[in-house]
């Protein structure tokens, strides 16, 4: 039943997007204000950004941002669960007004949707024992670094590691983290999302050494929703400066909003 409904929704979204053209479903700020509610699409299977709480309601970083956005606009935030593949069809077909769905800002996507300023980001960095002094890739020489085999971290570390770096490849992040925690390696290549879970367990035993790569995420609207996008950008600006995003980031990822998101344009 659920699968049928979802399949139908995807098909319908696709058909609508094709039939109506891209700009036909642009969200109108006035309509939203008059309705008193904004429909916000978000993922619920992408922890800690999008999850479901014990009662099955959408929760997570994106949910908190969505609620704050609703408050800013003075309307009720109606959260609509979407999935990775169907989130853009949902937006373009007008079933949601806006996506707060951990959508990474890429040039390819920017041709289909309009992105706000970045509100979140995922970074990959080298982390390690707090006492260890490593500031850049050159500092990796002679050190042991754990990574999950064939992951983005693996590629990143392998690219920058100088001769004499002992790269230890494990089957997954869990084993690599285990190697770090048991002291078998001093450093690890990890995403900030997994690292925030690690700090929950290990406290301040480990800290960040340097960044490898990052990807920022934006709130997306259908092309042509200029008035709405302006308001959303104002919201992101305000949430960045008044500490709202810092608070939400602290709650879900254990640290204030990282600089690479704050400074990204």
């Amino acid at each position: 039943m659920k699968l049928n409904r979802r399949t139908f929704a995807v098909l319908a979204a696709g058909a609508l997007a094709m039939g109506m053209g891209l700009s036909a479903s642009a969200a109108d700020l006035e309509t939203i204000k008059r309705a008193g509610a904004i429909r916000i699409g978000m993922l619920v299977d992408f922890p800690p950004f999008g999850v479901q709480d014990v009662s099955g309601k959408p929760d997570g970083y994106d949910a908190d941002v969505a609620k704050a956005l609703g408050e800013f606009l003075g309307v009720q935030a109606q959260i609509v669960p979407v999935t990775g593949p169907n989130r853009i069809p949902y937006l373009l077909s007008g079933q949601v007004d806006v996506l707060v769905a951990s959508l990474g800002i890429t040039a390819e996507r920017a041709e289909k949707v309009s992105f706000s300023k970045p509100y979140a980001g995922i970074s990959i960095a080298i982390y390690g024992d707090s006492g260890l002094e490593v500031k850049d890739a050159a500092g990796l020489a002679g050190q042991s670094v754990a990574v999950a085999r064939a992951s983005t971290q693996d590629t990143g570390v392998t690219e920058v590691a100088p001769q004499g770096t002992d790269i230890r490849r494990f089957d997954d992040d869990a084993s690599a983290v285990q190697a770090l925690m048991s002291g078998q390696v001093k450093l690890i290549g990890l995403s900030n999302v997994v690292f925030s879970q690690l700090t929950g367990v290990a406290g301040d035993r480990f800290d960040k050494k340097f960044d490898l790569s990052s990807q920022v995420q934006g709130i997306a609207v259908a092309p042509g929703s200029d008035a709405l996008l302006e308001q959303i950008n104002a919201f992101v600006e305000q949430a960045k400066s008044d500490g709202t995003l810092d608070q939400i980031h602290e709650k879900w990822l254990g640290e204030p909003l990282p600089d690479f998101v704050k400074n990204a344009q």
Partner: protein
Amino acid sequence: MYQFNFQPVLANLDLLIHGAWLTVKLSLMAMMLGLIVSVLGAVAKTSGIRPLRWVADIYVEVIRNTPFLVQIFFIFFGLPAAGISLSPNVAALVALVVNVGAYGTEIIRTGIESIPRGQVEAGRALGLSPVQIFRYVIMVPALRNIYPSLTSQFIYLMLTSSVVSVISANDLAAAGADLSARTFANFEIYLVLTIMYFLLALGFSTLFAGIRRIFFSYPASR
């Protein structure tokens, strides 16, 4: 239709050969140390000294009734908590020795028990020393009896060693996994790995057959 492309394998053959060399070294050392552990374990199990027997019993039962993956995780990730931190390759060796030692203990014990009491008494009647009796009357005939099961256990040990890549030891399987992660030529790489493991196993079988001819043939047939 899948297009075979062995270019990535051929270009990185040195990586695979390096991995295979580590697998051979690891297996050979584990076999030799494992044989020592097995003989000691079997002697402990068949000795009349109760506490010694209990220790050997517990060792054999614990190892034979738990998965190798768990054992190797315990040695690599668990022992550092007790202050013993081993490098991946050393941890892999220790895990393999501990594992094969338990199976070998049982195999050699059955060999020892297959020696009739009368044969030992005959040795004593001939005036052989206890060490001589142990060596010529018990161990050599015992090993001769269980030689096929012991060597197939050793071959199995070599194949089991493909698991050690989980603790980032860089054996043949790890070299293959790294290579397929980089080139995505998974099928070709695993085909080559299969052939390499098969050749290694064949090599070990030949080696064991040679050892048998030299050390365990009956004097009459020499």
